[in-house]
């Protein structure tokens, strides 16, 4: 009955540091309370929020919370009804104990629970290709360590370039499925008419042009992991079919009636919070639950500037043969950037800086005007450098043009190389070479159907 020796308890009882706490104190919703033991949390009406606010005027996901010491950073998730601090509508604000926020008809009160302990962090600073020393990243690594060996579906939510595919690869590599296939699909690149045949395969003669029997992605991934990027883009008819596959663990090839059993672990990614897509009627709730047994959030790079140095070390090793380092001034600059393209953008910046750097140190001037996205706004505003020899000046201008053009092109085509090649009217291999030359050929930039090894 008493099978826990006292010393076992004494060993684990430690002084908790305390965490901020958010309580529903008024309004129609059940009076729930959230202790911010995790560094990131969401508040909204959908049942999967960390703090569920059952108020019809509150959005599926209404606000995002980030723990900042004893305070909480609150961001409105782009809601129509807004988030209110007294008479002020707030979109991004840091709140301390005593603050009261109104969402819909509900009042949230912020205070501090000195008795609650923050969630324990992983000791590691990398997981697969992901690196980070920040609290949210080490929390993420702790989660990934735990869930990778289990057969649970995972939904990865993060902005572009945060490393969603790297999460999927790391999960696969740390699972018992690591020797089995890892198949990547970009839902945005699935042509609607062919999507079903591509995913589930087709029999010979199933439709015009089906001259061969073809194995679909799901069958190709049998025993392994399938990663579907931008799952929010999956057309509605496919969502229904996908749900059936997940429920029955079998697929039916186009043109066939015989179900084929498949054993795949599914990892999906999205840059939008799917719970708001559900609310808008664009994503199936039941599919969400199936796909999101585990939900992980990849924080944007601007929210974890403390990770910039360790990221630089890792990324420089992958983009350059030389042993390069970044000096303090350059690091300060990089840490302060908004990084809309996140880690992928940092990687591209470092690739270019590595090419520009004369010595083995990357300096402030090598990364000037970088880190604010592919839009090149600051770049474009900067006048052309007209000094020096004609050939050199022309070369610099061409480089700038190419970088800006290619970045815009790839962004427009959502990283789909084939589509970008069509739009730019250049051969696919030529475009790839250009992208490589400009350091824009990053991870997962390729299109899915004929996925190529990483650059």
């Amino acid at each position: 009955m008493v099978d826990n020796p006292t010393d076992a308890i004494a060993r684990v009882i430690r002084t908790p540091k305390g965490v901020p706490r958010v309580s529903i104190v008024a309004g129609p919703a059940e009076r729930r309370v959230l202790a911010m033991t995790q560094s990131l949390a969401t508040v909204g009406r959908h049942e999967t929020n960390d703090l569920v606010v059952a108020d019809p005027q509150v959005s599926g996901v209404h606000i995002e919370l980030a723990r900042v010491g004893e305070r909480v950073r609150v961001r409105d998730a782009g809601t129509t009804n807004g988030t209110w601090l007294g008479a002020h509508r707030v979109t991004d604000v840091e709140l301390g104990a005593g603050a009261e926020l109104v969402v819909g008809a509900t009042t949230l009160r912020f205070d501090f629970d000195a008795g609650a302990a923050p969630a324990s962090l992983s000791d590691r600073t990398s997981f697969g290709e992901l690196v980070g020393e920040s609290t949210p990243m080490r929390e993420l690594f702790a989660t990934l360590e735990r869930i990778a060996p289990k057969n649970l579906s995972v939904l990865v939510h993060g902005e572009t370039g945060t490393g969603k595919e790297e999460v999927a690869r790391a999960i696969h590599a740390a699972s018992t499925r690591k020797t089995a296939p890892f198949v990547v699909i970009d839902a945005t690149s699935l042509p609607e008419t062919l999507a079903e045949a591509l995913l589930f395969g087709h029999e010979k003669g199933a439709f015009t042009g089906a001259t061969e029997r073809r194995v679909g992605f799901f069958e190709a991934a049998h025993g392994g992991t399938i990663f579907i990027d931008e799952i929010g883009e999956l057309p509605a008819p496919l969502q229904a079919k996908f749900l059936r596959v997940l429920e029955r663990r079998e697929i039916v090839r186009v043109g066939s009636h015989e179900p084929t059993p498949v054993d795949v672990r599914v990892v999906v990614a999205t840059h939008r919070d799917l719970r708001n897509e559900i609310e808008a009627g664009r994503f199936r709730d039941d599919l969400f639950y199936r796909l999101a047994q585990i939900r992980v959030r990849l924080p944007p790079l601007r929210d974890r500037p403390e990770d910039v140095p360790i990221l630089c070390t890792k990324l420089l090793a992958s983009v350059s043969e030389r042993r390069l380092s970044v000096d303090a001034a350059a690091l300060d600059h990089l840490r302060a950037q908004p990084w809309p393209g996140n880690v992928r953008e940092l990687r591209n910046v470092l690739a270019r800086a590595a090419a520009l750097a004369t010595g083995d140190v990357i300096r402030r001037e090598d990364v000037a005007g970088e880190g604010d996205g592919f839009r090149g706004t600051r770049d474009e505003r900067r006048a052309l450098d007209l000094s020096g020899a004609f050939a050199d000046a022309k070369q610099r201008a061409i480089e700038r043009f190419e970088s800006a053009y290619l970045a815009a092109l790839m962004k427009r085509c959502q990283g789909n190389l084939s589509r970008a090649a069509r739009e730019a009217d250049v051969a696919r291999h030529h475009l790839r070479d250009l992208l490589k030359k400009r350091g824009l050929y990053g991870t997962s930039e390729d299109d899915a159907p004929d996925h190529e090894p990483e650059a």
Partner: protein
Amino acid sequence: MRTIAGKLRLLERIAIGGMGEVYRGQNLATGGDVAVKLLEPSLADDDSRERFRHEARVSAILTHPSVVRVFDLLEEPDGTLALVMELLAGETLEQRLAKGPLSPELAVATMHPVLSALDHAHEVGIIHRDVKPANIFLALEPSGAIAPKLLDFGVAKTHSSTVKTMDGKVLGTARYMSPEQVRGEALDGRSDVWSAAVVTYEAITGQSPFEAQDGPSSVSRILESMVDPHERIPPRLWLVLERALSKQSYERQGSASALANDMLSALGLSADRLPRLASDRPPVPRLETRGALRPVVAPAAGEGARPSARRFRASVVVAAFIGGAAVAGSIVVGARSRAASREAAPPAGAILVEAVPSFRHVEADAGPARAAATASVSAEPAHRTVPRHPASAATAPAPKPVATTPGF
């Protein structure tokens, strides 16, 4: 054969534990069977004697169909304490889970009456503090259905409790303890809510959410580790359990009944239409010991009506399998006699059997149509119908009653 206090004869030992033994006993005056838990003077220090008395007192406060009844506490001149309890046949949830996990529906249906009992206890200010599979008894009813009951209020805490929990001694079973219990803090009903969620998780998955693969580190896991979902737990039910397993009690459901309701709605079940555990063992003719010894506390108004309602339900089940279109009334009369229920014994006809062996669904008011409808309630894909039970249960030996072993 030993006799206690001149009025109870001990017939056979049915369980043995570290602190004492449990016997099947017979009331010499009425002939009724009871379970008798003995605390021998040689084994009893003041602490365990007080716990023994405490359990009797706490049980007397509780009047709930899912709490095992304690009828009396007897003391022999030599100091032997005897707790006289309702005799139950069946097995503990722990024994049941050793044979394999339950479907989510059955796990929730099993926990529902347990949570109802906890809610009742909490309302009168009693915290159980030791909710675990070994303390949930799946009592076999005459119908062959199972009625889960909460056992062992031996470490329960009342407002006026004198049971000691100081001296750094934490009562309770480590892997089901709430974080606040591990820390030795003041407890309320939400500590039991936590433990009930751990039991539910374990019943569905066959594994504890905190049991480490590599040793007895579950105490630190309770305080620190996040619990992950499990393939066998449906996502919406998981959200309910995840909330009940919040480290801070204020993050959990506020009451045991709130947890019960949340679990039901997560699975789309309703309280009056729960799948029921049933045993594949033939029903035991001698089960109803109520009335053999009057309970110390008079049953509440609602309580008195229950046994007959249950008996009626049992009859309907029997009716369904004996006669099909038989006139229910006449069967009801017949089924009330022991012989009839013995003959009609295995209500196996068209009942759906779960993939997990030895238990089947019987719905609360199971007729054949209802039983068939149960199929849609269950999430387990593999159902099969069993053929009509070939053997007459009358010839089969009645299963040995396994008694409650609270506190041992």
